[in-house]
């Protein structure tokens, strides 16, 4: 059992819809693996199978070496799941919720109490622990939602889009929590459709689209898929034809196209190339009115692989 999470040819169909098709990936113990993909990619369905909620149509997965199909109870013991939607009892307090969920993971007595106190500390809600959850802001609910999965100190924690629809401050808090948990040795499977989060948190990233894992690797490995070229979008105060020719022959410009009023250049190093573009424009009497530089990122990778944007 060398992997904390191992997913092998996992499949799930809902009637005719193949929500997950032959997904395979692994996570080493102690790493953060992000599952990045747009809405409807099949992330939640994959996670539901990993957490024992849905039976796979085919394939298997294991958590700490325990198959979710043949030894679901053992797999669940090693696992903490943070559902995409808040799953708490609104009419119970934060503390009561944590106590209840701790009991469901088999904690009792002094250990339970101690873990609840620790988790309240981690999620930063010690002061509000006696308030009913329905009195909480969205961000606070999300934190309790996460806390409930940490009580039994699982080896593996799965978080399904934990930052959707919350304020930047809570989001920061959650991302920092993820890093802290990971530093303590927890393996984290983190799903998101925000490429910034995947880039910030992950050791490895699996990109998912239409039920398939379409790319897997470290952040840098994935970026290399699209080359290292930077994209520069430029608008000018004149018709493009005049300057286009001059720019095409500028050193360091791999390619330049005019697309509805915007000129898009792919260059090897924007720091070196941009001054030359300004010079060339001045020579032909054209003013540059805006410049937008985009270093290659996961968004570009997704675009490159699927022809579509990650977010719509």
């Amino acid at each position, binding site marked *: 059992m060398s992997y904390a999470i191992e997913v092998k040819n996992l499949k799930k169909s809902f009637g005719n819809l193949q929500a997950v098709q032959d997904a395979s990936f692994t996570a080493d113990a102690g790493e953060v693996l992000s599952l990045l993909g747009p809405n409807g990619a099949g992330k939640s369905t994959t996670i539901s199978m990993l957490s024992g909620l849905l039976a796979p149509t085919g394939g298997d997965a294991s958590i700490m070496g325990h198959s979710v199909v043949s030894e679901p109870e053992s797999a*669940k*013991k090693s696992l903490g799941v943070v559902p995409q939607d808040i*799953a708490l009892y609104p009419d*119970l307090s934060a503390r*009561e919720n944590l106590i*209840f969920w701790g009991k*469901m*993971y088999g904690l009792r007595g002094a250990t339970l109490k101690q873990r609840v106190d620790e988790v309240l500390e981690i999620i930063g809600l010690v002061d509000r622990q006696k308030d009913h959850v329905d009195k909480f802001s969205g961000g606070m609910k999300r934190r309790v939602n996460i806390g*409930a999965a940490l009580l039994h100190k699982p080896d593996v924690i799965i978080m399904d889009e934990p930052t959707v629809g919350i304020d930047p401050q809570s989001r920061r808090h959650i991302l920092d929590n993820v890093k802290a948990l990971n530093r303590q040795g927890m393996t984290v499977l983190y799903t998101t459709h925000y490429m910034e989060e995947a880039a910030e948190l992950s050791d490895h990233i699996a990109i998912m689209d239409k039920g398939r894992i379409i790319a897997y690797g470290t952040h840098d490995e994935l970026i290399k898929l699209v080359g290292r070229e930077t994209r520069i979008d430029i608008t000018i105060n004149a018709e493009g034809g005049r300057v286009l020719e001059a720019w095409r022959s500028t050193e360091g410009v791999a390619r330049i196209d005019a697309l509805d009023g915007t000129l898009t250049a792919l260059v090897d190093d924007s720091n070196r190339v941009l001054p030359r573009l300004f010079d060339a424009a001045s020579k032909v009497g054209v003013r540059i009115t805006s410049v937008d530089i985009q270093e290659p990122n996961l968004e570009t990778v997704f675009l490159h692989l699927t022809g579509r944007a990650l977010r719509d």
Partner: protein
Amino acid sequence: MKILDIALKDLIRSTRSLFLIGMAFAAPLLITALIYFSFGSIASGNVDMPTINVGVVNLDVLPANSLLEAPLGESIRSMFFDESVQSWIHASDYPDEASARGAVNAQEIGVAVIIPASFTEDYLAGNKDTVITILQDPTLSIGPTVVRDMVTSLLDGVAGGGVAFKVLTERSEANGQALDPATIPTFFETYSTWYANFQRAMFHSPDKAALVVKSPAEKGDTGNNVQSMMGMIMSGQLIFFSFFTGAYAMMSILQESEEGTLARLFTTPTNRTTILTGKFLAVLFTVIVQGAVLLTAGRYLFNIRWGETGSFLLSFMGQMFASVGLATLLVSFIKSSKQAGFVFGGALTTLGMISGLFTANIQIAAFDLMGNFTPQGWVLKAWKLSLAGQPASELVVPFLVLTTMGIVMFAVGAMLFRRRFA
């Protein structure tokens, strides 16, 4: 252990639901108390009541756009003409206040009831300035009081309907669902039928009508008649609300499924049978506590003797099994908690009515017959036997019937649940 944790969690949540507490404890006790006090601390002895001549001036007209089918004044008027009171009330119509006043002065009638033209409109608008005038022959005492009580109790009924209606709309709005306007008249109709029956039962003889106004009773044997009637009335309430409470508590399964906590429970190392069993246990416990509280309250607040220990226990246990069974079955058919208000309202009210729960103190052959086919009907049979002081041996059959019904309904419901959630 986890079973108990789950049950305990559900019980804590129940105690935080004002609606559930209201329906489980407050409503049945309040309704019984209202009936109790409308009997004015209960009469003693036989009452010899002369026929009362009542003159009715009904000027009330139905306001535009009203959901009612007839003005309230008409209901009040017809109460005095109802055949159930003909043995002791002789009613006649008068065209206006002046002619009625003349008739009272001439002692042709003992009491005149004058209902003003905008009565329905004002009453429903909550405007208490418009009043029904009751003119009385000063030499009479009991007749006018009875008449006044009849009017008041009918109006209380209307107000009660309003309250029930408000609960229904608030409940459905809380569920994010506007009440279909088409169902409003049906609701009022159902309610008024029930209330009319209730009224008939209360005023069908001068004896009972007189009970309304008699002076406070001395403790003693003569209260028996009324006491047994209170027993019947309260057992009707007890049964209705026990079934309601069971169903409502069982709904927490749907709620959990909607809140996502059921799915989350399934991701913990807790097997599904444990989870469902814990939830059933909570419902069972809720129904037991509710029954125990209501039975105790009935005993000490209303002096109801529920029966011999054995008979009492058999009735209570039968009621418990049947409510949990029916609750499981009902909830297993419901798709979402949004539907629940309507299904419970509809199914439990209908079953309650045809089982005679709302008319428990009178004999209605059709209800007795239909009651043979409903769990509520059998619970009522059991309580009637127990209240009548029958020994436990007489309750074995109803108990067995209830246990069987309970087990069958539970089994079918639990199977449907398992198929759905496990």
